[in-house]
């Protein structure tokens, strides 16, 4: 099972995806484009976990299948001028003709994204749920 967790460990709930990957023994990435592209392109099928902020209650888990259609950039856009957002990375891999057939994406709704470490309680619960589900 190929699992990729994405996030910034210094921005509180943004680390939710990293935490799932850590618990499962998946890859923890911060959006560095080459690593992200290669991690996705190298897999037969892949599960990716990232934090999102859509306005849904914290801890909500949004699930998508990105093998066939692009992810909504509203949820998975770039988080920095120098990182690729998950949506962009997947589309770049698709443009290069190297996208896996199955790409399961779990977006964990975060509550706090300010500087600091540690997950909010609702997000911590979602991390446990996602870890079990994978």
């Amino acid at each position, binding site marked *: 099972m190929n699992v990729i967790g994405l996030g*910034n460990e*210094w*921005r509180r709930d*943004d680390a939710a995806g990293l935490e799932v990957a850590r618990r499962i023994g998946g890859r923890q990435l*911060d*959006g*560095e*484009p*080459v*690593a992200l*592209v*290669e991690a996705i392109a190298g897999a037969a099928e892949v599960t990716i976990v990232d934090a999102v*902020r859509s306005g849904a209650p914290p801890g909500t888990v949004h699930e998508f299948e990105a093998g066939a259609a692009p992810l909504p950039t509203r949820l998975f*856009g*770039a*988080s*920095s*001028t*120098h*990182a*690729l*957002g998950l949506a*962009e990375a997947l*589309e*770049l891999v698709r*443009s*290069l*003709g190297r996208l896996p057939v199955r790409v399961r994406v779990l977006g964990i709704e*975060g509550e706090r*994204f*300010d*500087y600091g470490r540690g997950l909010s309680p609702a997000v911590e619960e979602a991390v446990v749920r996602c870890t079990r589900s994978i």
Partner: protein
Amino acid sequence: MARTKTLRTDYLARVEGEGAMLVRIRDGKPVEVKLRIYEPPRFFEAFLRGRHFTEAPDITARICGICPVAYQTSSVNAMEDACGVDVGDRIRALRRLLYCGEWIESHALHVFMLHAPDFLGYASAIELAKDDRTLVERALHLKKTGNELMRVIGGREVHPINVRVGGFYRAPSKPELAALVDDLERAREFAVETVRFAAGLDYPELEQDYELVALSVPDAYAVEDGRLVSNRGLDIPVSEYEQHFVEEHVEWSNALHSRVIDRGNYLVGPLARWALSGDRLTPLAREAAREAGLGRDERNPFRSILVRSVELVFAADEALRLIAEYEPPEPSFVEVVPRAGVGYGCSEAPRGLCWHRYELDGEGTILDAKIVPPTSQNQKTIESDLHGVVERYADLPDEELSLRCEQAIRNYDPCISCATHFLKLEVDRG
């Protein structure tokens, strides 16, 4: 009645309002240009106080995912300065090699993935990849080669962990570095082709009169250390930075804007390095620049993509030279005994000067930290470029003018890091 229009670009994100651009035009003239960029070093300065001086390279590396080596190098330079330690030539050479890795990965990302789409009329590198897969695959190879160099010397690709005050926890072996040579040689070839590619781009017209500031050393292209020099006669040790430069608060931004005291805004980064030290690039890089028609007095900020490409040739070439001449430092670090005092460090981040000052007590506790990143130094100059762009291109339709303004901001490869995101573009007509 006067015709007013407002261009507004908001960088919104997971954390909103960290960066934005506002241009207000009246009768075809820019009357107001405001750039608002938040940078995380302010948070890290507070975070560093009370920490041990040996923690600075690991903590400051977290400021930026794309230029951690710049922050690490400037911080260890400063700590070694405070403690009166000289690390010697072998450790300095290894630092320079690590830094080459960062220049390669950062410049490759910026040239191909972020800036080239502007020049070629693509919305992003994704559309570019659909039309020119080879170009994007080449960019990925270049970036990967830089990442590999950082991984082998720094311990990992992002946020290297092998850098310490006084040197490195472990020096790589000769075979470990030799294993990178093939990829670096290919990267160097790609870089030469990149210069040709960049030379063929269509450049918007803009000539600006800059004060250019960069580090300088007598017989090399300054990267990891040097004196601060400018094209207007500045020539000072990095310890005198605060006597010549000031950061001021502006009401529309929570970032500080830097200027030269009594003179005004200045430019740091590739254009400045090229103007002040271009004659000290490696012969291959100089030849690539000559072939591309790059003049020594380049004052068109859009041509920075060309200088960045030349610096890609330099960084790959220099990395190969450093690997060929490499002798592992033994031991891999110099013991650094803390002493009370102040230390200064500076290095050339891919996007320009990264200046640090630390005050330590006798036990090595950090009492005070000041970090001046390249993007805050360039902010006033970016604003003045935007003035120039709007003046020159006021007749363009709003959308094209907005894109040209964004392209002008990207000339500086600004590090609007940590959770800021371009999402929304708003054009207002008054």
